[in-house]
């Protein structure tokens, strides 16, 4: 009987092994060619060391060749991660923690006679309340005379985006959509301001490195002799650089929104009570909070033991939420940057390597609070398209309708030509009725706003 398995589309580069699905479960195969390194990884204590320090995702070893491959050595069943986010959806502090996790993993590896052969940002993920390394097969035997093979990759995928965001104080995560393999260093060198040259670490790893990358010739590989001391200095320097970068808590588009919203009589309290009651009764484990701001309602849902993907397009708001959940240790909120009118697309080879946001979103409850007017009036998106977008994200929906008379809508229309005659509750309900049945409806105090609980029809 032929063996049934589906290779993970993003897992084809590394000859050490690959990820695949079998009976709906994700596994990782270790190939025979990587046996020696993998044995050292486990028997040398590095695996246990990384797992105990929460730097690496745990796995179970399965003694079965599920792929039927001749190159099979071991099958691993990694711990399930409910939602995968990509670097272009990370806020500054997620990047920074991911970079530090990678460097810490490299240091731990070095202390056990191994080294990281990959420094890809896609190998790190928000899991169990911190940025954690995913790829078990990224550790190989360390040869002190060799330089760090992943050095350039680290600079392109971690150091460069962080440095640009730090020096320009501009949220630049989406650059990785254009450059999924990392930012070209000669370009980074041109974009960085002159003053960045006065930081020794930035100068060496980005400016000098960028010049060298540009001047590269067809000369044979220069493998000058390296040493453990040199590698240790290199890691220390990269760590110092990453630690020195910061992203100021400047006020974003939505910063201060809750303080202002909270002042509106009992609007906030009543809204909380309704959502808490409705969400508690739903048969869902996952929620996607779109337009989450600093995640006030994401926290409410997380308190009900739901796993919440908390999405917003304001980098500062997402960063603040991330800092909060790190500090308060809330592992079941996954903050991401997302512009709903341009959600993360499918990328990579055959458009299969990185799934689109819609394809990845864990399906359950979609929460869209005080958002409809921003999509309909702010972005000119008709109700029927908004309804379809939300339907694609999950079968349940809690949505807040903000009427035309609302001061926030009036504020939006003040500087805009009013071409929104169609923005009326009856049109809203008609458009959503194509996909959903309304299960509950409640007015939020005297605000004039209404909350709806909707359940999608079977597709």
């Amino acid at each position, binding site marked *: 009987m032929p063996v049934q398995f589906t290779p993970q589309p993003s897992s084809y580069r590394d000859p050490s092994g690959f990820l695949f699905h079998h009976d709906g479960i994700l596994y990782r195969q270790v190939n025979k060619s990587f046996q020696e390194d993998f044995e050292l990884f486990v028997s040398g204590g590095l695996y246990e060391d990384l797992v105990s320090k929460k730097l690496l995702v745990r796995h179970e070893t399965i003694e079965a060749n599920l792929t039927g491959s001749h190159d099979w050595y071991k099958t691993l069943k990694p711990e399930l991660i409910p939602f995968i986010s990509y670097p272009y959806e990370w806020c500054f502090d997620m990047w920074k923690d991911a970079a530090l996790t990678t460097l810490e993993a490299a240091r731990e590896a070095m202390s056990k006679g191994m080294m990281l052969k990959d420094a890809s940002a896609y190998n790190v993920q928000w899991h169990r309340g911190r940025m954690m390394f995913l790829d078990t097969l990224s550790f190989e035997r360390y040869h002190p005379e060799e*330089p*760090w*093979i*992943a*050095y*350039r*990759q680290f*600079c392109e995928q971690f150091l460069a985006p962080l440095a640009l965001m730090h020096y320009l104080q501009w949220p630049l995560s989406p650059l990785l959509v254009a450059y999924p*393999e990392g930012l070209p260093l000669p370009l980074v060198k041109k974009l960085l301001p002159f003053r960045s040259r006065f930081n*020794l670490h930035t100068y*060496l*790893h980005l400016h*000098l*490195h960028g010049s*060298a*990358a540009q001047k*590269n*010739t*067809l000369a044979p*590989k*220069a*493998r*000058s002799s*390296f040493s453990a*001391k*040199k*590698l240790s*200095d*290199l890691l*220390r*320097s990269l760590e110092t650089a990453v630690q020195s970068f910061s992203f100021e808590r400047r006020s974003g588009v939505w910063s201060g929104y809750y303080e202002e919203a909270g002042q509106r009589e009992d609007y906030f309290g009543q809204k909380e009570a309704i959502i808490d009651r409705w969400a508690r009764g739903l048969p869902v484990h996952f929620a996607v909070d779109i337009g989450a701001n600093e995640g006030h309602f994401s926290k409410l849902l997380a308190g009900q033991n739901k796993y919440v993907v908390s999405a917003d397009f304001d980098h500062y708001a997402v960063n603040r939420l991330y800092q909060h959940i790190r500090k308060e240790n809330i592992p079941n909120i996954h903050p991401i940057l997302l512009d709903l009118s341009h959600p993360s697309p499918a990328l990579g080879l055959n458009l299969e390597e990185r799934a689109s946001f819609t394809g990845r979103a864990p399906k359950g409850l979609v929460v869209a609070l005080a958002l409809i007017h921003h999509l309909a009036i702010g972005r000119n998106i008709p109700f029927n398209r908004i309804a379809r977008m939300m339907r694609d994200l999950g079968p349940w929906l809690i949505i807040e309708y903000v009427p035309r008379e609302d001061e926030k809508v009036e504020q939006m229309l003040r500087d805009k030509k009013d071409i929104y005659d169609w923005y009326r509750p009856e049109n809203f309900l008609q458009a959503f009725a194509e996909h959903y049945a309304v299960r509950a409806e409640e007015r939020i105090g005297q605000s004039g706003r209404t909350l709806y609980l909707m359940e999608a029809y079977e597709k």
Partner: protein
Amino acid sequence: MAWWMLYIDPGSGSYLVQAIIAAVLGIAFFFKNIMLTVKHFFFRIFRKKSKMP
């Protein structure tokens, strides 16, 4: 992208510059460590003095 870059493994280009950078860092950290040792030395002396009755 220059044509020759298409024939070079992306990782290999950084070996030579990595060696140069590591050498510079070796010197920089050597002096930094001396500075830290000196600072630490004076810090200990002053701390002892301030603890004296």
